[in-house]
């Protein structure tokens, strides 16, 4: 039984390690193989980019060698997939080599697309890559006052990022002693300050308390860089001196090329199998799915655990053991020293509590504990 995992990010890595422990006997006996193909020999802790953008972490803290995170029995190759051949249980990779599989797991993730809005890439800061997070911090360092606009596209990775960066910016400017010279303005695509109703109910009075203005039903249409104006699909516009964007995301190009619009693969919400005639032995994980749930590290973490349990059970007993219930857990950094969290699934909405220092310190600890999660231990 050859299990081929495409993608060495959070989901693929947790799955590979979790599964490797469950199948240790089968791997040793040569009855199972786990092969991972990734685009990079490094693994990034992506939530750390938020902290890099406000000068609270440096980029080197975000990386580990991917091979060092994997259990010894996992065959790891830096050889990104260039083509899927679902009809013959095979993928082609950048090296030109073909890799066969009995079970395929696609965990290729998503990418922020600043190019999706005219003028955005040229005129806005963002923090979804190391390069852009460092650039954003440099822009903040040289900013001496004016109107800062945080704007949000859909879909985007990390549903809490828009609120978190706004609260972090509030503290950043406060610490520099220029908060009174900065007008912080937040825009959001739907009719409240966050997609989760209870999070919006918590965030809105926080905005009032901190003097942050906000505008809802605002979807970016174009940026007029010459006049420093952001216009919306809804017909409104807002001036800015510094524009911070959480841009719309897409799945990876190789997935789009395989015939999946937007790079999102239609996925069964319970079994996580790919929908369609070739889905029986293909599973999809994390951002790559088209499921109507948060694109977040915790989502792919919980899905990876379900897939690992099910694959091991299928190999050992012939049947899977459980469904994915839509579980998501998101920390919400409510400034530099306070945090809360939202936990929910397909049937139970979250009920976030007021932020505390204790949750902030737990989140700070998790920024290091993540490597234990990636190894499939936590």
């Amino acid at each position, binding site marked *: 039984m050859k299990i081929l995992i495409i993608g060495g990010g959070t989901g693929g890595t947790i799955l590979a390690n979790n599964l490797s422990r469950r199948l240790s006997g089968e791997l040793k006996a040569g009855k199972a193989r786990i092969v991972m193909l990734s685009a990079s020999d490094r693994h990034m802790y992506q939530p750390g980019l938020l902290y890099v953008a406000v000068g609270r972490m440096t980029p080197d803290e975000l990386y580990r060698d991917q091979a060092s995170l994997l259990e010894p029995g996992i065959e790891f190759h830096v050889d990104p997939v260039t083509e899927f051949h679902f009809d013959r249980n095979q993928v082609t990779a950048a090296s030109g080599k073909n890799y066969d599989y009995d079970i395929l797991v696609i965990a290729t993730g998503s990418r922020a697309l600043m190019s999706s809005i005219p003028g955005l890439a040229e005129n806005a800061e963002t923090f979804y890559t190391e390069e852009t997070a460092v650039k954003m911090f440099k822009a903040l360092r040289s900013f001496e006052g004016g109107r800062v606009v945080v704007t949000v596209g*859909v*879909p985007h990775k990390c549903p809490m990022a828009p609120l978190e960066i706004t609260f972090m910016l509030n503290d950043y400017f406060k610490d520099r002693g220029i908060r009174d010279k900065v007008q912080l303005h937040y825009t959001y695509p*739907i009719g409240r300050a966050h*997609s989760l109703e209870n999070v919006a109910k918590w965030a809105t009075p926080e905005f009032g308390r901190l003097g942050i203005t906000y505008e809802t*039903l605002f979807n970016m249409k174009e940026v007029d860089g010459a006049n420093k104006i952001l216009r919306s699909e809804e017909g409104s516009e807002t001036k800015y001196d510094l524009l911070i964007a959480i841009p719309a995301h897409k799945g990876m190009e190789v997935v789009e090329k395989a015939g999946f*619009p937007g790079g999102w693969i239609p996925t069964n919400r319970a079994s996580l199998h790919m929908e369609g005639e070739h889905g029986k032995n293909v599973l999809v994980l994390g951002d790559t799915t088209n499921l*109507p*749930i948060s694109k977040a590290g915790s989502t792919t973490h919980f899905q990876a655990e379900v897939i690992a349990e099910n694959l091991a059970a299928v190999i050992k007993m012939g049947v899977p053991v459980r469904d994915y219930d839509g579980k*998501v857990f998101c920390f919400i950094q409510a400034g530099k020293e306070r945090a809360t969290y939202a936990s*929910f699934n397909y049937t139970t909405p979250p009920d976030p509590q007021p932020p505390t220092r204790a949750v902030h310190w737990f989140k700070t600890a998790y920024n290091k504990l993540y490597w234990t999660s990636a190894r499939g231990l936590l």
Partner: protein
Amino acid sequence: MEKKIIDARNSFCPGPLMELIAGMKAAAVGDELEVLSTEKGSASDIPEWINKVGHEVIETREEGGVWHIFVRKLK
């Protein structure tokens, strides 16, 4: 012109309207989208956004706790 279904049942985050906004971006002018939602608020907040942006609400109906909201991309 295509007909597409956006199955946003049991979606707290990003939720039905966010799913529709993303779906609208990917759709072509003239395409019809059917949003499935188990959130009662979708019956009002989706039409509110559609009207504000200038697309068309074709029909809204509820069947067994699921709201079916049919919209057309006009621009």
